[in-house]
């Protein structure tokens, strides 16, 4: 029974990554970076697995200690991974259905709490 459960869970979890590559909405900025051959994240699978830990650690550093560097900043993620609407300069909300966060989060059924408070699109000209 245990082995069956392990097999089943592994298949379910891996299936996320299988699908994640195919229908993945990467984001306007990230897409153009990828097509020009550059990489931002050294390891996508590491980011996929560890982004909650990275972001939680960073948010405590930023909020409680005032460290406002770029690494693992949520608005940094949003600025690359949000997608523009067709033929306009407006962005889809990053947590909307079919957008960047949802393509994985809907499959693993884990709700994203961030964007109740955080801005869902990059801020143009905003500092």
């Amino acid at each position, binding site marked *: 029974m245990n082995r069956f459960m392990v097999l089943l869970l592994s298949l379910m979890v891996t299936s996320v990554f299988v699908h994640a590559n195919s229908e993945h909405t990467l984001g*306007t*900025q990230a897409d*153009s*970076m990828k097509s*020009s051959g*550059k*990489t*931002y994240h*050294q390891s996508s699978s590491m980011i996929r697995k560890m982004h909650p830990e990275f972001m939680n650690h960073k*948010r405590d*550093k930023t*909020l*409680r*200690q*005032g*460290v*406002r*560097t*770029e*690494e693992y*900043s949520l*608005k*940094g993620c949003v*600025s*690359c991974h949000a997608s523009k609407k067709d033929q306009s300069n407006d962005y889809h909300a990053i947590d909307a259905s079919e957008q960047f966060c949802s393509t994985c989060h809907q499959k693993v059924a884990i709700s994203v709490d961030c964007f*109740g*408070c*955080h*801005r*869902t699109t*990059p*801020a*143009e*000209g*905003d*500092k």
Partner: protein
Amino acid sequence: MDSKINRRDFIKATTATTAGVAALGAGITLTTYVNANENPVTNEKRWGMLVDTNRLTESDIDGMVTACQKENGWGNETHSTGDQKASWIKKIKVKDTATQRISNLALMCQHCEEPPCVDVCPTNASMKREDGIVLVDKHRCIGCRYCMMACPYDARSFVHEDITNQKEHMPRGKGTVESCTMCVHKVDKGGQPACVEAVNSDAVIFGDLLDVTSNIHQTLKRVQSTQIRADLNLNTAVRYSGI
């Protein structure tokens, strides 16, 4: 993680360059991280403000309120009524009953050294940074509003409805408590709070209370000033002269 510091620095340098190049190429301004400090803030500084009610006019104060709203994105909550709307800073008109003298002042979070809101928060969401700025960690806030009961200055607001189109640097959300942050996102980059910039005169001075060379420190030594509700012994960072 300590052993990986070198690799991290390398990644940071290369990715910052690539990201910057890509951003310029696509025509979008990425959020800037210029001058971002990597080191935690310390208690070597204590940020404070001095409000001179003798020099501050009513339109100055209205300008402070508007600037705060624009900078931090509050004030246009459409579903909330009257007292439910957020109010990070407000204009107070006060009359001395004995002399009939009227003063106008701006009242916001006083960033106390002994904040009652921090004492009573059950989850440590209400917190004081090392440099004295009092904040709400909205990741931890459960929305119990006890800090609002405890605040002697009516400084805090509860978010009564869904919020959208937040400012990138000021997340705000339904069900959590918020208040004046002394524009900590600007202060951390060497700037000043939006309300202080809006007045742009000696009527409101912002600076490091502990720095003996700072304008605020020297002014506080020279002119009479007071804390609101000084009897509570909270040692507020915001001081007022002329009341």
